[in-house]
């Protein structure tokens, strides 16, 4: 099954972190990416730009509106994600708990849901042309 692990971090305290510590964290993330990739469990991962760079798009009555800033104001902001393949929710939690940033913020683990069109399931993986 496919799960997404979304990383939430407090941007303010992350911004105050000394550069060597940030570099050490990044290196640790890089090693963990490699480890999961070698084990065939990592489908995609990425870090996100600060939430202040977010644009929210809505279409109402055929009109596109764009607003600044994240959809919801919270203490922690989405900072990155891992798209993983795991046997079950407990394995996904286990993988998520090893993401180095889990020690600083929160990792939200959620199963991917199929997109149903005309009674047929489409996994977003297939649409992205990634391995099913």
């Amino acid at each position, binding site marked *: 099954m496919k799960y997404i692990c979304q990383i939430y971090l407090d941007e303010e305290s992350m911004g105050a972190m000394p550069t060597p510590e940030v570099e050490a964290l990044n290196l640790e993330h890089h090693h963990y990416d490699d480890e999961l990739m*070698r084990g065939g469990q990592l489908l995609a991962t990425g870090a996100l730009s600060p939430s202040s760079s977010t644009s929210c798009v809505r279409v109402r009555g055929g009109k596109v509106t764009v607003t600044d800033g994240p959809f919801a104001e919270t203490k922690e902001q989405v900072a990155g994600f891992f798209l993983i393949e795991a046997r079950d929710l407990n394995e996904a*939690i286990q993988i998520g708990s090893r993401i180095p940033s889990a020690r600083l913020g929160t990792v939200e683990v959620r199963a991917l849901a199929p997109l149903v069109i005309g009674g047929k399931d489409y996994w977003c993986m297939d649409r992205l042309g990634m391995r099913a």
Partner: protein
Amino acid sequence: MTLARQEIERVYREESRRVLATLIRLLGDFDLAEEALHDAFIAAVEQWPTEGVPGNPRAWLVSTGRFKAIDKIRRRAKFDVSLEDVAERIDEMADPNITEDHEGVEDDRLRLVFTCCHPALMPDAQVALTLREVVGLTTEEIARAYIAKPSAIAQRIVRAKNKIREAKIPYEVPARSELPTRLDSVLRVIYLVFNEGYLASSGEMLTRHDLSGEAIRLGRLIIELLPEPEAVGLLALMLLQESRRAARTTPSGDLILLADQDRSKWNRDQIADGIKLVEGVLGSGRFGPYTLQAAIAAVHAEAASADDTDWAQIVSLYDVLLRADPSPVVELNRAVAVAMRDGPAMGLALIDDLLAQGDLEEYYLAHSARADLCRRLGMKAEAAKSYKRALQLTQTASEKRFLEGRLKELS
């Protein structure tokens, strides 16, 4: 699909739970062992197609998994100080002079069952952990079977593992002296798993059937490794109850009482197996409640029809069971058997005494049994009163339909 690939899938199906059990013993940690198992199979997929399938795939997977775990922990310890002492311990384990003890590998599954059923864990955590680690169900499958949210089951499993780690619960089969009490919780969990599958009153029938099948498989594993009389008795009980599965419900899922079941639909192989096991245990003279319940089920199974049933023997088995494991529910069942042996009036007197004691007031089967005896005695108003009380206490739709049907027949 290549031959090696097919072989890897077969080995995964048949060996992965055993390999996991051994890795948990060697690494002393559930999560680390699960990762090691995963890594070992990745290595098999890479190596077996070119290098050939090893002579002893299980031993290969155990030793590969162990070395992968050691590598991983060493790498991680560079970043995570909390892993430093684990890394040290792992260094000792990496000693090439230590070889896996293959003699003890079979016992590893038993150790795992006992660890998952440790009395320090909550009963529902014991069940969830056993289903996932020993049986190999996924968290989502367990949640479906228990009609719970996967996140709730996942939390239960994470907490149980933390508890095992923090309380340093030993990964072992308890000593002989401790065995009777510890075996109890193992047998109870297996029987709970079975009952989840057997009382298929709600939810998805298929998943539940899987559960009773898994419980029987676990029961067989236990007696293969630990042929204690009560463990054998439990397996016999499960086989005899399971033998009636095809006859217990109508195609629309309505209950059919034992007396009304089409006995040609009973599974003769399971009955023969069950009876043989019960006879063996009864012969040993050391038996308890599971064996006695199995013996009662065996008497039912041996009868060609409901009328042919040896009710006198069933009553005397209930007498023994009452001494071994007294409970109001056993007394109720005995009263029903007495009614069959000596007539409904005798049974009704016993049930009225039991209800007067109060313990069974909220138990719907006590009221439906009373209703049935009143019905057979022609006491229509009393029967209707008890059916109505039973209906108030019943949760499941198929039982409600059954009671409503009986109530309608009265008027």
